[in-house]
């Protein structure tokens, strides 16, 4: 028998079997590709809330993340294994404004914050193995805090283990009247010059519009897929 016919028969067999499996629910469909993504941002940006809503979970009872939170977030054509890292202080037991100011530039120790150590110093321990980055910021914060966001974003963009990866930057809390508009944030963060040559997406977001958030993540997935098609390029 010619190779051609043999190959055709083999393909038919595979096709038939796959159809049979799918019809008879005898096996799962082809598994979706998985990508490991790290999610960072200052405390209070809304990382946990966004990721919980993406996983169709409730957001009642969310407290500041004091370590890592790994979630497998399913999308139609991929699964993102998101490692979310807390942005604030470890050991502190209450939320509130003193959290948000606990950045690497400023150390605040209010009464109830038990430790002034900062989780952010550990972020880079989790960068290895990541294929993409999600950076979340609160669009409503003060100028001082926005300055801190910018520093952190720039650090991440330049970090040796992240600098070649696609970034999804979410300007969260866009539904708030005091939110800065996305174009303003883009300009302030100097993304055009600073992130030139890198792949990044900047979108506004709010947990009250998860459709849009999903679309933003889908854009990230496209970037992740593209990267695999041209492995040699930086």
């Amino acid at each position, binding site marked *: 028998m010619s190779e051609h016919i043999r190959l055709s028969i083999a393909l038919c067999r595979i096709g038939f079997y796959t159809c049979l499996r799918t019809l008879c*629910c*005898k*096996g*799962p469909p*082809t*598994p*979706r*590709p*998985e*990508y*490991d993504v790290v999610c960072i941002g200052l405390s209070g940006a809304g990382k946990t809330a966004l990721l919980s809503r993406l*996983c*169709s979970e409730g957001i009642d009872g969310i407290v500041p*993340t*004091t*370590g*890592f*939170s*790994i*979630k*497998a977030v*399913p999308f139609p054509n*991929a*699964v993102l*294994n998101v*490692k979310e890292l*807390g942005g604030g202080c*470890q*050991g502190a037991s209450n939320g509130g404004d003193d959290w948000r100011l606990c950045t690497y530039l400023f150390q605040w120790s209010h009464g109830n914050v038990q*430790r002034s150590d900062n*989780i952010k110093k*550990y972020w880079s*321990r*989790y960068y*290895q*193995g*990541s*294929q993409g980055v999600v950076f979340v910021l609160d669009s409503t914060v003060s100028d001082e805090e926005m300055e801190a966001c910018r520093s952190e974003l720039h650090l991440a963009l330049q970090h040796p*283990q992240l600098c*070649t*990866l696609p970034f999804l930057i979410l300007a969260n809390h866009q539904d708030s009247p005091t939110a800065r508009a996305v174009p303003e944030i883009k300009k302030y963060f100097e993304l055009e010059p600073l992130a030139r040559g890198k792949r990044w997406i900047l979108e506004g977001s709010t947990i009250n519009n998860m459709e849009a958030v999903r679309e933003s993540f889908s854009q990230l997935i496209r970037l*992740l*897929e593209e*990267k*695999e098609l041209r*492995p040699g390029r930086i």
Partner: protein
Amino acid sequence: MSYSCTSTGNSQDPSSSNKSGGGVNPGSCSGSSSSGVSSSNSSSSSSVSSGGGGGGSSASHSVRGGKSDSKPASAEAMKVKKGCNTTDVGVPVTTEEELLANTIITPEDVLGLQKITENYLCSPEDNIYNIDFTRFKIRDMETGTVLFEITKPPASDKGGEKRDIDPNAGRFVRYQFTPAFLRLRQVGATVEFTVGDIPINNFRMIERHYFRDQLLKSFDFEFGFCIPSSKNTCEHIYEFPPLSEDIMREMILHPYETQSDSFYFVDNKLVMHNKADYSYSGGP
């Protein structure tokens, strides 16, 4: 001290389910208690093909979208190796007796175990990093329904009260599910744990599920680095391979003959060992 155990699934009649994952009755559990929730996945998925034998079809597998940029996995990368069905190629078979004689037990040691252990391979005191499991939850990924959730109540040691409890009580959980559980396709299992003051460089969990001394599935998850004094959660999705009717029937008819060992390692040394068993008959 007892766990609060909430079974919050739908109370739909399972027979009305029109898709494979739906209409699952919630499970329940009885855990005897003090210190830790077993993080074992109660999704004791069977990956044994109907041909029997341990070398069955590959279990759930993941397709990693491309490669990571970095060097070969060091101790700090987090990854899950799924679907390790049988003894890994090259991993020598080990027995419980041999391991109990060692001062240190490594991940490779337990990957060679062929059956559930009779004894715990370490003592509660070996948990020098003060790792404490505080919550475990599983949900059906197809419907989003939380099937099972167990949380440890906040520590409430009454001073001086010395109770006569089994020292292993906190290391064992008994799960009770209905037969419908075995028809699930995709389950998300969330584990939450706290860590003491010492940073942990490489935290790894290996969990092995057996039905009557036959290895069904082995999970291997590296958490990597854990920040001191942190509370961390991890959810991963398990794809169940289809179970043959025969195997399912056996598992349902023989409650608690499905068992699991969960081993936890820090820097490749065993520090915790939890156990669980499972019923799918729907009753106590």
